[in-house]
């Protein structure tokens, strides 16, 4: 293991009974980077984090955190990591500051530093005004922020974030992403899971795409997007539902990938541009389809994801419940 690798995962596998949740995954996370596990719900992201943080035993394979084997030295590893689970699971009955102080005590933060550290974190996460409010009275975004603060109370070297912004409104999610980006500047290595492509694109230095328990690609968002740039992407908006259009275009353009982006929008990946335009307009004329717009678009991480996994973006839009 090279010096700058802080998490090393090798052939990590998890079966729940006969169900294969994580299938021989391999990846490395380097010191100071934000590494994302990107994939739809049920891809095995949370199971991977649970194994790495000692909440679930791997069926096969190995992993180490800062050189500590997760199978035999997990308690030692836990001293150096902070974990933000998918559910904001602090104590409802305790106030913001008391939740942080309780975590500080559990992690053995010296008495003299506990309150200072807790108050610093409350200020950083803009929760100082609510320091005496019980956890259950906080908004969902505040609960998420406090859960992250609690994971940082012992000054960990690595932070695990499981779906950090799930269930948050746009403003709260943006604010939290800014806070996460700031953590990297403090030198904390972050491993996060997300099913939001935009989040992975904005935050992550490198992304591992996880589908059905397997890692299908690991690279920087930029390189992943370049993969999609190699082919043309055309986005067509129409009046009415696109499902029939997708069906008809699939018949007429058999060698290209056609994906419904939403109810009125379809994207066509690949093919010869002249041929694609010609067949789209002919089809619109034949079937009396009103085209609102046709754009040749710059590939996003979403396009790269679609190209790499063959999955529709609607799969990624299926939300998990957050607390």
């Amino acid at each position, binding site marked *: 293991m090279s010096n700058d690798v802080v998490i090393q995962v090798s052939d990590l596998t998890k079966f729940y009974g006969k169900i294969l949740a994580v299938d021989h995954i391999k990846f490395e996370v380097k010191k100071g980077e934000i590494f994302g596990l990107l994939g739809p719900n049920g891809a095995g992201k949370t199971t991977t984090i649970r194994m790495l943080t000692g*909440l*679930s035993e791997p069926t096969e394979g190995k992993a180490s955190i800062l050189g500590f084997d997760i199978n035999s030295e997990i*308690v*030692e590893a*836990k*001293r150096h990591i902070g*974990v933000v689970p998918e*559910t904001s*699971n602090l104590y409802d009955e305790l106030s913001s500051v008391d939740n942080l102080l309780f975590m500080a005590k559990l*992690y053995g933060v010296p008495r003299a530093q506990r309150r200072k550290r807790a108050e610093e974190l409350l200020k950083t996460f803009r929760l100082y005004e609510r320091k005496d409010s019980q956890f259950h009275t906080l908004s969902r975004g505040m609960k998420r922020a406090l859960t992250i603060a609690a994971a940082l109370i012992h000054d960990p070297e690595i932070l695990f974030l499981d779906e950090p912004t799930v269930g948050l409104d746009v403003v709260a999610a943006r604010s939290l992403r800014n806070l996460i980006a700031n953590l990297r500047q403090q030198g904390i290595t972050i491993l996060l899971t997300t099913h939001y492509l935009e989040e992975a694109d904005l935050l992550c230095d490198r992304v591992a795409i996880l589908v059905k328990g397997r890692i299908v690609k690991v690279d920087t968002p930029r390189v992943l997007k370049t993969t999609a740039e190699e082919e043309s992407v055309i986005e067509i908006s129409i009046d009415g539902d696109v499902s029939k259009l997708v069906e008809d275009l699939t018949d007429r353009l058999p060698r290209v990938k056609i994906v419904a982006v939403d109810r009125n929008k379809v994207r066509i990946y690949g093919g010869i541009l002249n041929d694609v335009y010609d067949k789209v307009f002919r089809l619109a004329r034949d079937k009396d389809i009103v085209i609102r717009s046709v754009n040749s678009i710059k590939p996003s991480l979403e396009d790269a994801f679609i190209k790499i996994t063959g999955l529709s973006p609607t799969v990624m839009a299926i939300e998990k419940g957050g607390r």
Partner: protein
Amino acid sequence: MWRDNLRGIYYIVLKDMRTYYLKPPSVSWGILFPTAWILAFYLRNPLSFQELVPGLIAMTILFSTTAAEAVVINLELKLGTLERLLLAPISLPTVLLGKVLGGAIFGLIMTVIVTTCSVVFLGLPVNVLYLILIIIPSLLAFSSLGALLCVLVKEVFEAQTLLNFPRFLMIFLCGIVYPVSAMPEGLQYIAYTMPLTYTVDGLRYSFLMFSGTTIITDSLVLTGFFILFILLAIKLLHKRFK
């Protein structure tokens, strides 16, 4: 490592005392329930009431340790806060021991109140050392029994229902209202498989009344039940996080 675990147990107990046990519902339940039983038996027959004191203290031990603990462990499993504790650098047995000790300490407070009142108001002769030898392992045994039954099920109401079965069975079979020695032989065998029988017997011994076995036997058997229940509870909880 052991220092981390001891620290973990200490802070989990303190936190549980503050957030669960020393709240009005727990305290009122812990005091009202045995008081209601004591009054019911006293009013029925004030003259032979002293005979029932060991059984009533045993019941206080049983109910005060298990009543709130069943809610605490299941609620924390359901809300994910128990998982939060497991993310700290402490072991799973430490977390469970913290929970069990919380229940046992709350039970101890309630038991001391009921026992002190019984001794002071009724002027009963008592051997305090014997009382300690019985009450401490009893509290630990019933608290770990509560933990064991809690980790067997998922919902809070399931835990309460499951706990009621051994609790009420023990009330009728373990010598609280009817001496074990006077029961049919078959029932006596069943009674001696239950921890409350040894608690009642040990308490009778402590109050210088007739008892079936020695205080040391009662204390050792109760310690054995504690070890058995806690090991099974740890195993089951470990299985949940496998």
